[in-house]
């Protein structure tokens, strides 16, 4: 492109033929090297997929489709069904989304529309900082602060003060460890991702959209609700799904607070398992090949699930960007 127009002017300077040839080789080598580095990424991804799926194959062949539907996870008797882990992953992520999405969108609206200028930077910094905290630190805080707090204060309050203990959603003993703790921790962890994407998307909504709404007599909230949010909708949904992708794959913090028990229960307080936590918890202690293979099969399911979820998210964000450009 640009070098074509430049080449004629550059020619007199490159009178020395040897140097010209050398630089031609240099260009070729440089191009090979960068192309090679770029090719590492697809090769790596194929290799990861190959290793995970080939490792998962023995278990998938033995259990077939029932691997996904059976709720029996019994390492001693060599029976493996991933249903409790799949259930736990989906439910804990769902809880996290229910808590995090309104908060994250609220924060993003606050930061992009309403916040006084002086508070904008500090709040944005603090929310971004949530994403910088390592997962294991969330887990540590979860085990030693959140779980005891749930056990001693929140769960007794719901059961005894509000008398909701007979609902299946709140049934069972108060361990503290369980779905609720996992969902809460996940909500804190995905909040910065959702809010960052939402904020960017809101900032991309044209000023004229807001001004038109205000000029028609809309209140500030009506401007957001009727003019800004519909415009930003697909981008925000993309951000939410990106957050979901994080939540589905999140390992350490969840492993530390979910209670690690392969059961399916309707109760928020019951211990559970997620796909990532079953792998983290059992992999290095797995004794036989079938157990390892079953754990890899769980990894393969997780792999596919997160890829699909991330693709949907990217597509939505990309579509938002394109609509705006066109």
């Amino acid at each position, binding site marked *: 492109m640009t070098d074509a127009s430049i080449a004629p002017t*550059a020619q007199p300077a490159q009178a020395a033929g040897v140097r010209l040839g050398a630089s031609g080789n240099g260009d070729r080598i440089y191009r090979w090297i960068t192309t090679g580095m770029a090719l590492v990424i697809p090769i790596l*991804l194929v290799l*990861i997929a190959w290793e*995970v799926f080939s490792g998962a194959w023995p278990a998938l062949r033995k259990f077939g489709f029932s691997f996904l539907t059976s709720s029996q996870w019994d390492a001693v008797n060599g029976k493996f069904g991933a249903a409790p882990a799949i259930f736990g992953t989906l439910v804990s992520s769902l809880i996290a989304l229910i808590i995090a999405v309104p908060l994250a969108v609220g924060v993003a609206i606050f930061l992009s529309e309403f916040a006084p200028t002086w508070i904008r930077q500090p709040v944005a910094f603090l929310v971004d900082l949530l994403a910088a905290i*390592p997962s294991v*630190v969330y887990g540590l805080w979860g085990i030693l602060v959140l779980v005891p707090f749930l056990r001693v204060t929140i769960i007794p309050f719901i059961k005894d003060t509000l008398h909701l203990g007979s609902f299946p959603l709140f049934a069972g003993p108060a361990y503290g460890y369980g779905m609720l703790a996992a969902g809460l921790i996940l909500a804190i962890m995905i909040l910065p991702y959702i809010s960052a994407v939402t904020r960017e998307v809101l900032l991309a909504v044209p000023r004229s959209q807001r001004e038109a709404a205000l000029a028609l007599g*809309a209140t500030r909230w009506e401007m957001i609700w009727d003019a800004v949010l519909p415009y930003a909708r697909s981008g925000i949904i993309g951000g939410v799904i990106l957050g979901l992708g994080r939540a589905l794959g999140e390992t350490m913090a969840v492993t530390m607070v979910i209670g690690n028990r392969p059961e399916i229960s309707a109760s928020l307080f019951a211990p559970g398992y997620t796909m990532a936590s079953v792998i983290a918890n059992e992999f290095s202690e797995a004794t036989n090949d079938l157990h390892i293979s079953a754990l890899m099969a769980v*990894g393969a399911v997780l792999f596919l699930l997160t890829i699909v979820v991330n693709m949907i998210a990217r597509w939505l964000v990309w579509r938002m960007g394109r609509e705006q450009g066109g």
Partner: protein
Amino acid sequence: MSTASISSPSPRRPASSRSYRDMLAASTARTLTRRRIMSYVMVALTYGAALVATLPLIFILSHLVKEGASSVSWNFFTKIPKSVGETGGGMANAIAGTGILVLFASLLGLPVGIGAGLFLAEQRGTRLATVVRFLSDVLNGLPSIVLGIFGWQVLVRPFRHYSAMAGAVALAAMMIPLVTRATEEMIRLVPVSMREAALALGYSKWRTSLSVVLRTALPGIVTGALVAVARIAGETAPLIFTALGNQFWSVSPTQPIAALPMQIYIYATTPYDDLHAQAWAGALVLIGLVLVISLAARYVTRSRFGLGGD
């Protein structure tokens, strides 16, 4: 919208135009008040959301400082863990281990990430670049535990023992997409005129790319690399069954190695109070490390060579 009620004519004819106007005025005032109150409430709720969203961070950090500060001592940085039951000891081996894991992961991940980023920026429109960019996002979205399985399959299973190298490979796979995208974005920020000026002066394309474009973008790339380092330094999941952890001093790449986040995980899941104290101290040191790297990243971008300033 509710404004529609103002302009739409009433279906019933009013008895007298005067009372109709009064009624209309009254109802408009009522809706307007309702809409204003609604607006105030919702705006207040977004303020509330900002408050609630920042509270967990403040809780976690304050707890961390309170619990961690009392346990961080000289011994913490210089001693290795005592055996279970004995008090005292530190995490010297885990701190060194994290350093070594990050170093090896960077040696593997940075050249690939920067090279791929150069490729994506310079071959922007090509089909290969589009595919690589997309797959890099896919890789970025993979759960870190899956990368742990990959590291185990490639470097633990064939050699029949856990090793620091296997952990570093898993971390490098995490790092590559982060560095790639950061590099690509930074190189795109370099004005085309700089490239053109260098080419016009007779520089070959590769020298232009390396000593003009890459050099101009370097602070931004360093920032991207530091962000990636901060991210992998806190990772636990890919290490549990690759690097495994080690109670003793080891810096060998072929042996199991300790890492700060893993040590926190192990201590946090025991029932012992003094190990919990150690875990808090470890978490404080880890957060400190991550924050120092992140701040360094910000500082580099602001330095005088940076593009970030404008």
